């Protein structure tokens, strides 16, 4: 029996995908967990950031740093476009507008008319050149067994971990600062904070911007080792991020990071076990039916979490944004 899937699942702990989702979920926690904004457009922020990065680096040959800046700028602009009309309205309007805006982005980049720039349904390949150009790690293969990485894989993993660590420190300090107390106050009672003379609208906008920028950075980490595919930024990505964030704890800094690791390791294990089940005919299903199962698992996890442990693994019950 081939048990290499156990190693692959272990490898998920530091895979660029896990790191990227941890960072994007951290951004979501700033919006949803700490500030109470129902941002269902995190996948849209990822897409905007990713496209800004990939287009400027692949088509315009910008230097890596400038492409990252373009990505951040894209996320900031997207946050303003979403926030200005909706942050004054009731919370669920923001939910619907952000989910709609994320879908608009996905539909638009797939348009054949602008395919020369966005790559249409194929997306954009090869945005890693600028990043790999200053890779200090000597050419070679590192690791053991199935967990072997070449120098470029290792480089993005190390940088990804560093960026995520810095972002987590930043969010941690931010939430201990007066700014953090105000946004938590907005989450608990918006009117009370307004009565204290704070500009609630502007604080919400700042939270949305921070969350969006983290999603954009996350997607740069996500696409460098692979490629940019428009259909990876559908609504299901946002819901994955919600599951990750709620799993670890929406009102904690480490929660999204822990959540992402558990999420991808468990999914990878489930995939491996299902594959074995199909291969040895333990399960009466075909290989094609394997794909949907992971989504069913995520859906069940999301429902159970919300109902039975809304504070997640690391969160405190009293701080759960929606104590049941």
């Amino acid at each position: 029996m081939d048990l290499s899937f156990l190693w692959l699942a272990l490898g998920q702990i530091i895979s660029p995908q896990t790191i990227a989702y941890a960072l994007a979920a951290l951004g979501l926690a700033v919006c949803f967990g700490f500030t109470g904004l129902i941002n269902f457009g995190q996948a849209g922020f990822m897409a905007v950031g990713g496209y800004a990065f990939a287009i400027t680096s692949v088509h315009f040959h910008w230097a890596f740093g400038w492409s990252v800046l373009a990505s951040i700028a894209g996320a900031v602009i997207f946050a303003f476009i979403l926030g200005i009309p909706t942050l004054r309205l009731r919370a669920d309007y923001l939910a619907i507008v952000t989910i709609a805006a994320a879908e608009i982005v996905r539909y638009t980049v797939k348009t054949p008319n602008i395919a020369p720039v966005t790559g249409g349904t194929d997306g954009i390949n090869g945005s890693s050149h600028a990043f790999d150009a200053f890779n200090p790690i000597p050419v070679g293969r590192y690791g053991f067994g199935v967990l072997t990485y070449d120098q470029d894989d290792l480089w993005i993993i190390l940088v990804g971990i560093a960026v995520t660590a810095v972002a987590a420190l930043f969010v941690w300090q931010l939430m201990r600062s007066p700014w953090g107390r105000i946004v938590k106050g907005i989450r608990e009672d918006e009117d009370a904070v307004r009565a204290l003379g704070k500009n609630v609208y502007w604080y919400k906008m700042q939270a949305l911007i921070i969350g969006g920028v983290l999603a954009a950075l996350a997607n740069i980490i996500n696409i460098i080792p692979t490629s940019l595919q428009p259909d990876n930024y559908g609504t299901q990505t946002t819901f994955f991020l919600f599951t990750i964030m709620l799993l670890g704890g929406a009102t904690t800094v480490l929660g999204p990071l822990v959540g992402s690791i558990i999420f991808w390791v468990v999914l990878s294990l489930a995939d491996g076990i299902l594959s074995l089940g199909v291969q040895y005919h333990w399960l009466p299903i075909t290989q094609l039916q394997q794909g949907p199962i992971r989504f069913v698992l995520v859906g069940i996890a999301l429902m159970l979490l919300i109902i039975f442990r809304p504070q997640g693994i690391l969160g405190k019950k009293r701080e759960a944004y929606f104590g049941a």
Partner: protein
Amino acid sequence: MKIPQAQASRLAHRARGALAILIAAAALILGPAAMASAVETPAPTPSASPESIEIWIRVAADKSNVPNASVLVTGPKGFSQTFVTGPDGKAFVGLPRAGDYTLLVDNKSLPAGKGTPPSESNPRVVTVSPGDVEDPAYFLLVPGGTEPSVPGSTNTPGSGHHSSSGNNTDYGALVANLTANGLIFGLLLALASIGVSLIYGTTGLSNFAHGELVTFGALTGYVLSGVLHLPGWIGIVGAAVAGGLMGLGQDAALWKPLRKRGVGLIPLMIVSIGLSLVLRYLYEFIFGSDQLIIPSDSHAAFVLGPIKFTSITLISVILCVVLLLLVAFILLRTRIGKATRAVADNRALAAASGINVERIIRLVWVGSGVLAALAGVLIGYYQTLRWDTGGSILLLVFAAVTLGGFGTAFGALVGSLVIGLVVNLSTLIIPANVQNAAALLIMIIILLVRPQGILGRRERIG
């Protein structure tokens, strides 16, 4: 139907021109590197869309090509366009997406004396899988249209060719067709939207799993008439019954206990997202990811000027209108309807005045389930059906409900018609694959100017 090729291509040209200007402007701002890449890229053409069909019309007797024949192509998400064969008898049909497309050759556009395609192959459904290029749709004309044709016969397809010989162009016909499609789609959307709106009004839940109620109805109809080969009306009635039971079951098993626990509205919304993931992918697990087809008679049964209705479309429209009138009657004239509106207006007050709120909510769930399932089965007939049919229209439903005003049933109807029209008519000026984006954009703009929606009241936006 007559062809708006000249105008359509002119419009498309103008849109492309505007886009080119936009790109050029962006290039100017972004600097010389950007400029170079903008210049290098070739102008996009209609054939840049990935999937396509090649139509080829010939005379069966002497295999001579038939130019200037018009073919109406309709497909998923309201795709409806007419193409004219060129001098080589061929027409290239660029498609926005994979799916099942129905091709109908307009017999009146064929040259006299050459015959018509056999009625059993006209209209014809062509299944376009993702990535298919120039799927063959060949028609052979026979005298009197009696002999069976040979679909996709002998000759290898030549290079596709977008027709340019629109000698009897008729822009009005295209607009009329798109308007009709828009209204029909709007009516179907309304069936689903009213449920979302009523559930929101009575319980405060933004139900992200409503699309799965729609798919549930469609799949029930598919199992009954597509798999078990029962008559179509049994499929429709069965879907309605199953949908009602599904609504009842969901409320009893999930939503009522959660209400009892006092779970907040936002967690409820997230639970509905989880439920929608579970159900949607269970459907895919059971039915696979391919298009499913509910058998129906696709002959034009009713012709109104340039617009043709198949019998099932006609039945759908009548059914929708009757159901919507029924919902309006129930809401406005019956005690249950009054109680429902009272609960939607102020739940505590309604409960205090002796209304059994839980019973009303249960009825709303049953009614929403029935309406959503009917919407699903009719959409299954009208367009095509897949495991994610309901999920893919969910955002349009939300857009319709938001547009009309959350929690108002009639707003949902108005919003649905607007969304249906926007989705279809927007294809006149923008590429068909962003038609849904247009509808969502309209919703965002309406929220900017009139956040309470068209028929909503200001206090609801809080």
